[in-house]
């Protein structure tokens, strides 16, 4: 399979070779724990990373492997490793290169789970983070310490929707020999391929737009293959002998896939956050229609924006496609097809009105996910970001009246009619 095919073709074919035994057109679901070795020499060479091959489905699985290769091709990376969830992807990617005493410079506008990981969990293991306003480029440079080993952010901030200036931050990383890792969940490779702008590693919650149907939880880490791990002694997990594998030097042996190999050899083997074959199969099906769905998500988003901007019960609307949005120019640069299908808005009447609105819409589902084919809404202050303190809430750009809308694929006229019901109820409760 050539990786030079165009996006839609790769979405359907990358990573899959037609089943050799029977010619099955769809990828078989290898729902198996283990693989029978032809002989002991082959077995030991697979265990030693001397050759590819499957031993145990915690580490590799043929169905999951097709998904990994497909995402790597779409993202333009050298290799990918799928994980049991998006959070597992973040955790595994960070711990593959950071150890006790190391430091992260991260955007302050991120998914609440990522903030909590860096603020509450990783410090228990001696890994600390400094959070920087994503619009403050100098702030990223200033926050770098001697022990900084990673710069981390989300291209489309959650939920404030500020766009990270990938090239500017990548340049700061390059100057300091620090890799730049981006959570690209909200954009998917269809809207932006971060490696084209100097990013070194991407992670995705493939639960969201990549899978697209709300059926399976999963994550992926993609190795951009564009970071020179050997240019510095900051990354011993990549460049120094790795004892469990007879002192192998991953950087020398695997070069542009050294980072992904470390995750495979350590995170999959020791942490075991593996994706199940069934989830990989469902997610592969989702990716087959990624571009079609994203186009529809974007056109529905444009219609909903127009509707919300002109609605009397809406106090404010935020989306990077709006000229009034502080990231509008960056959105045009990095997301020329469209700035995603997440919209934030406030309901006139504040917190209570917002709550009433959510309780009275029917078609839009009230839940914590985003990127489903179905339209979803949530009140971030009391749900996804409830575990972070008030100060961090402000830093993350979250207001008490904010409603986060994930625009789905329904007929937009039905969505608007549904919202009218919610707005009427909100108006009543606000005494307007």
């Amino acid at each position, binding site marked *: 399979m050539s990786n030079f095919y165009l996006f839609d073709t790769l979405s359907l074919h990358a990573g899959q070779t*037609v*089943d*050799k*035994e*029977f*010619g*099955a*057109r*769809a*990828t*078989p*679901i*290898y*729902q*198996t*724990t*283990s*693989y*029978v*070795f*032809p002989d002991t020499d082959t077995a030991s060479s697979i265990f030693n990373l001397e050759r590819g*091959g*499957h031993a145990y489905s915690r580490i590799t699985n*043929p*169905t999951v492997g097709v998904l990994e290769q497909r995402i790597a091709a779409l993202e333009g990376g050298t290799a990918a490793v799928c994980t049991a969830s998006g959070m597992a992807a973040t955790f595994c990617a960070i711990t593959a290169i950071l150890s006790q005493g190391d430091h992260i410079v991260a955007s302050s506008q991120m998914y609440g789970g990522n903030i909590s990981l860096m603020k509450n969990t990783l410090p228990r293991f001696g890994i600390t983070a400094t959070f920087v306003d994503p619009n403050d480029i100098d702030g990223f440079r200033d926050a770098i310490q001697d022990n900084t080993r990673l710069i981390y952010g989300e291209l489309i901030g959650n939920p404030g929707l500020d766009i990270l200036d990938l090239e500017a931050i990548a340049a700061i990383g390059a100057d300091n020999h620090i890799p730049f890792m981006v959570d690209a969940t909200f954009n998917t490779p269809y809207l932006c391929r971060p490696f084209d702008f100097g990013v070194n590693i991407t992670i995705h919650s493939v639960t969201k737009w990549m899978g697209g149907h709300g059926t399976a939880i999963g994550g992926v880490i993609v190795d951009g293959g564009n970071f020179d791990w050997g240019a510095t002694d900051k990354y011993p997990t990549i460049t120094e002998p790795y004892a469990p594998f007879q002192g192998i030097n991953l950087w020398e042996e695997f070069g542009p896939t050294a980072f992904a190999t470390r995750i495979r050899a350590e995170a999959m083997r020791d942490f075991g956050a593996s994706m199940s074959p069934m989830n990989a*199969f469902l997610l592969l099906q989702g990716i087959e229609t990624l571009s079609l769905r994203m186009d529809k998500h974007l056109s529905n988003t444009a219609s909903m924006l127009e509707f919300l901007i002109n609605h009397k019960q809406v106090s404010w609307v935020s989306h990077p496609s709006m000229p009034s949005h502080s990231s509008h120019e960056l959105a045009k640069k990095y997301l020329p097809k469209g700035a995603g299908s997440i919209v934030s808005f406030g309901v006139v009447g504040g917190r209570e009105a917002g709550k009433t609105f959510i309780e009275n819409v029917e078609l839009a589902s009230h839940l914590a996910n985003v990127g489903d084919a179905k339209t979803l809404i949530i009140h971030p202050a009391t749900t996804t970001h409830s575990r972070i303190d008030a100060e961090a809430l402000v830093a993350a750009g979250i207001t008490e009246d904010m409603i986060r809308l994930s625009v789905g694929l329904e007929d937009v006229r039905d969505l608007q009619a549904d919202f009218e019901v919610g707005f009427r109820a909100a108006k009543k409760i606000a005494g307007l």
Partner: protein
Amino acid sequence: MGFRTKQIHAGVTPDPVTGAILTPIYQTTTYVQNSVDEYLAKGYSYSRSGNPTVAALEAKLTELEGGAACATFGTGMSAVHATMLAFLSAGDHAIISDVAYGGTYRLCTKVLSRFGIEFTFADGSNPEDVAASVKDNTKLFLTETPANPTMKCSDIAAISEIAKKAGAVHAVDNTFLTPYYQRPFELGADLSIHSTTKYMDGHNATVGGAVISNTAELGEKVRFIMNSTGSIMSPMVAWLTLQGCKTLSVRMDQQSASAMAIAEYLENHDKVEQVRYPGLKSFPQYELACKQASGFGAMLWFEVKGGLAAGKQLMDNIELWSLAENLGSVESLITHPVSMTHADVEEAERARVGIIDGLVRLSVGLEDTEDLIDALAKALDQA
């Protein structure tokens, strides 16, 4: 190879490409052919006609039953239906056990009768009644033994002899005992039918059916109907059933041991009018049950003193036992056949064959025997 080894290994060889120890789930519609001339060289074209995961289950069931071929279906009913379509045409006649699953009875009397097929419901416990039902146009015998829900047993060997003389095919519905306990082909039958939903899966996870044939020729006829009418088994169901089959013998042994203990408990209970379990010496066909099968299974029924009203009260009150229609699963189930599984059998016919109103059917699962008996004891106390 013994049965227990076969239930693990039969039909399954490690995937030649990856070594995967389990059969992959080939959730695919179609198969890429190398060339026009090599069409079907790898064995598959379209998943209605055949699918590698489904084929692995078919191979396993063939070996477990000791047959020559197997075709699997979307449900147990489609397996029964396909058997009838394979061997019966307009103007033909079939002899069916007079006690059988209500769905089988409904299929014969309310569906296939519309297409000019004639049925006689004969008393399988009395081979003379079966022989007397034979007509010139009799083409198929279908024997369900033990029968659902009365547990009446039919003599497979005797009916196979009658069928042979009549030049007809003898199919046995072997769902209740499975080939682990009952071997229809060794007793002269031609086909063995299963609702794989029951003991083969065993976990209430799937609905499915299978027809195993004693000769390749019969198997071809059944498979032709499977492909022509298209009521096939899905790869996912086949895969789950493949896993279920691996513990068939262990489950059957444990569930049957519990059933025996429960039957003995009920038989000695003051509030129980009668109990029917083939393993009880009081069972009217105890000798046939012992001769024909190596185990008694995990299905039984009893009648509470006070009949229908008392039985309903017990079924509504009982804990742990789920009031549900399936049987053969690891979860113990309690069923009222008259209002549930056999509601489509007319009252007069039910009375004729002994499906009494107060009949409470038990499908004994894999829970601790003590817990199952405790739950029955409590419910009987309230009755």
